């Protein structure tokens, strides 16, 4: 192992997209024969950094060197040809082609100008067996195999083109325990062969199990580079999600502590979905803000979606003692007074072609049905009222939502759900990608709503925010609710300890 000279070095990387700075002065080094974990929460800039490295994006500033030589990569293909290969979370192969083809397509062995299938199958078999210890029938279409095998095939494809650097972008997020073991076995083998591996994951256990070195990014900035065995878990977590480990003042809440007598709005017992979230119990009371804390991929969103019926649980049940019955579908949830702001504002939130007013009244109108329309005058009143209440800018209700900034779009969606006067409001990352002022506004709104008796389930990747607004926090780790922390116990240290686990 040559530990002195990094094979890959990125320094002073800047990248901005119109209106946002996604990377500023980021550096990254990768040594041959090491597994280097790149860590960070949503929006930290991990994927942008990888895309810069693999030539998907250009850099605005900064330099990249490979084996000491400056490097300009213009396309993933070019990156591959000089030895930087990437395996993405969603396997970028063709499921309809055979395993062998997926490894060799574009460089198939030819004989008299035609594809030599025999030779190709034989080479694929040898490659998979010798380097990845995988014995499968390479003549079958890729779709016949599990995601784990597909990942390995993707790795095989990148090895085929003599890789020096292998980037694994969240390869483990859809694998089960055994499959992860198999992948790690192979990663170690490749590592011994001198390959430099950049590994992105959200699972702390895995980071400590496999990586030698850790680089942490936060909000597009470089936080630090550490040797894995010198960085305690809790510190890793705090570097990823918190400012420094300092106690934050909780905003004093008016009617502190929800009384245990307060009615339960929603009660999940043993609710779960296989491969997505382990069964959990969680109750939400009137006037209570329940926060969900945990790292990206820990199952926060999945819990929230189950409460709304957006995904179907395959075990356990959700009861709504006050409204009665359950919420098996969004439609039902809406009727029972549950509202849900999805984390995917673009794809699951706004209806871009419609105006602010129309977006706002959609949910309430859906509940009223086709014919009980809200008069145009009433619509205008409601829209203006909420534009003022939530301080939406521009204040024109006839503006197309598509043309609003992210923060204002979020407010429109909030208004849409507030109009339905829900008993339980589920907010999944309501402040992501929103400026600081708006963030504070939304946090304040959440608290005042809960004072009025609304129950809120609050999901955010920013721990500070969760700490600030929640009466009770359920902490998730590796798709499991591991701890509930309430009242006086709520502080950064306790929550981080629970997130870090181990």
């Amino acid at each position: 192992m040559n530990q002195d000279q990094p094979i890959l070095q990125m320094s002073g990387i800047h990248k901005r997209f119109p209106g946002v700075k996604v990377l500023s002065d980021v550096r990254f080094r990768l040594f041959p024969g090491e597994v280097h974990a790149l860590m960070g929460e949503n929006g930290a800039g991990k994927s942008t950094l990888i895309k810069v490295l693999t030539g998907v994006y250009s850099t605005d500033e900064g330099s990249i060197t490979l084996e000491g030589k400056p490097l300009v990569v213009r396309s993933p293909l070019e990156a591959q040809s000089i030895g930087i290969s990437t395996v993405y979370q969603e396997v970028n192969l063709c499921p309809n082609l055979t395993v062998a083809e997926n490894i060799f397509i574009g460089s198939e062995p030819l004989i008299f100008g035609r594809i030599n299938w025999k030779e190709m199958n034989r080479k694929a078999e040898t490659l998979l067996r010798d380097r990845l210890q995988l014995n499968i029938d390479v003549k079958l279409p890729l779709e016949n195999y599990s995601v784990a095998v597909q990942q390995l095939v993707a790795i095989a494809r990148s090895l085929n083109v003599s890789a020096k650097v292998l980037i694994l972008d969240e390869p483990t997020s859809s694998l089960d325990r055994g499959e992860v073991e198999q992948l790690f076995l192979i990663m170690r083998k490749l590592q011994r062969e001198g390959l430099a591996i950049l590994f992105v994951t959200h699972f702390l256990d895995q980071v400590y199990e496999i990586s030698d070195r850790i680089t942490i990014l936060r909000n597009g900035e470089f936080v630090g580079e550490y040797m894995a065995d010198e960085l305690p878990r809790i510190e890793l977590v705090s570097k990823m999600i918190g400012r420094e480990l300092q106690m934050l003042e909780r905003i004093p809440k008016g009617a502190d502590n929800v009384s245990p007598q307060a009615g339960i709005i929603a009660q999940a017992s043993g609710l779960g979905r296989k491969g997505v979230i382990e069964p959990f119990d969680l109750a939400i009371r009137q006037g209570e803000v329940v926060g969900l804390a945990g790292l990206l991929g820990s199952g926060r969103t999945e819990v929230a979606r189950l409460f709304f019926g957006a995904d179907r649980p395959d075990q356990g049940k959700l009861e709504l003692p006050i409204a009665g019955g359950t919420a098996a579908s969004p439609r039902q949830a809406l009727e029972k007074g549950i509202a849900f702001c999805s984390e995917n504002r673009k794809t699951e939130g706004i209806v871009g072609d419609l105006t602010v007013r129309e977006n706002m009244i959609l949910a309430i109108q859906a509940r009223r049905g086709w014919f009980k329309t809200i008069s145009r005058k009433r619509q205008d009143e409601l829209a203006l009222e909420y534009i003022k209440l939530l301080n939406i800018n521009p204040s024109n209700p006839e503006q197309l939502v598509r043309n609003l900034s992210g923060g204002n779009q979020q407010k429109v969606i909030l208004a849409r759900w507030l109009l339905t006067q829900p008993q339980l409001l589920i907010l999944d990352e309501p402040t992501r990608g929103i400026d600081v002022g708006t963030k504070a506004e939304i946090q304040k709104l959440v608290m005042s709503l809960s004072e009025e008796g609304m129950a809120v389930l609050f999901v955010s990747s920013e721990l500070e925010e969760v700490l600030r607004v929640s009466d009770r926090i359920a902490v998730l780790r590796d798709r499991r609710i591991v701890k509930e922390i309430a009242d006086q116990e709520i502080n950064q240290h306790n929550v981080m300890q629970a997130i870090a686990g181990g």
Partner: protein
Amino acid sequence: MNRMFRHHLFWPLAILAALLLFNLFYSPDFFNIVMRNGHMYGSLIDILNFGAPLVLVAIGMTLVIATKGIDLSVGSIVAIAGALACLTISRGTDQNALSLVLSAVGLTVGLSFFLGAWNGFLVATTGIQPIIATLILMVAGRGIAQLITSGQIITVTSDTYNYIGNGALAALPFSIFIVAAIYLIVSLLTRKTALGLFIESVGCNPQASRLIGIRSRLIIITVYMFCGLCAGIAGLILSSNVASADGNNAGLWYELDAILAVVIGGTSLNGGRFYLTGTVIGALIIQTLTTTIYMIGVPPEITLVVKAFVVLTVCLIQSEVFRKKVVQRWKTRRYPAEREVSRHV
């Protein structure tokens, strides 16, 4: 001024006006309307009269396209509707009897509802892409129409039935009133109830609509049913107009003309916002084009060449990539993957 240019009806209206203006210069008596036997005659009236079925089908198609769908089977439904109505009437003892004609119309409307529901069912519940789901009825429908007519051209001699396509009310062709009534009803239904809003929401963002609690399946089935109904009535008008049903040729290529009318009218094939008035103007443009080409003595089939260029131009203008390409040629050439990947994220 700028607002006027950006209004969604500006371009369709401008094209229509340009076409009419051309006609005015080419043949000054184009705008003449004469009264004979209480009927108005003239090129403009003809355009409205002959364009009526297309306007109807296009209105139905607008709602379907607004939900991100497409209905290829309308031409076949037009043929089936005409065939069934003419068959029913031709079998009657007194072809002029109002009850017979009414039952024929009722039967046809019922069947076209059913055919539309079939399309809607396939699209909404099986998850087959609309273009494929409706292709089935497009292929089989022609056969069904010919089955009904036994491959013959069924002629009817019913003055009552004839009235639908040739009669006059207040000196104007009766078909215009049918179209106007349906246009009015749809406008009211979509703009005065929440239906229009739901259709646009489902077409623009199906996932968000699901989370909002909109019953999108019901919406989708409804619009296909309505589209079937429009095609059925168009079939009635067409067959009544020529007093016969031709399973093979009636409504041929109507689906394409209707889609074209919708697109010219400003409704995007990607679903979302829809413009009924725009569609009506789009259909009238197509009809005016046909009439114009007839008038200047070019073989009418050449309209197809013109249509080809219209389709292409409109779609290129709607294509985001095309617009961006014109602007950002240089950048995308340097980093081709930036464009490709960001498209999929």
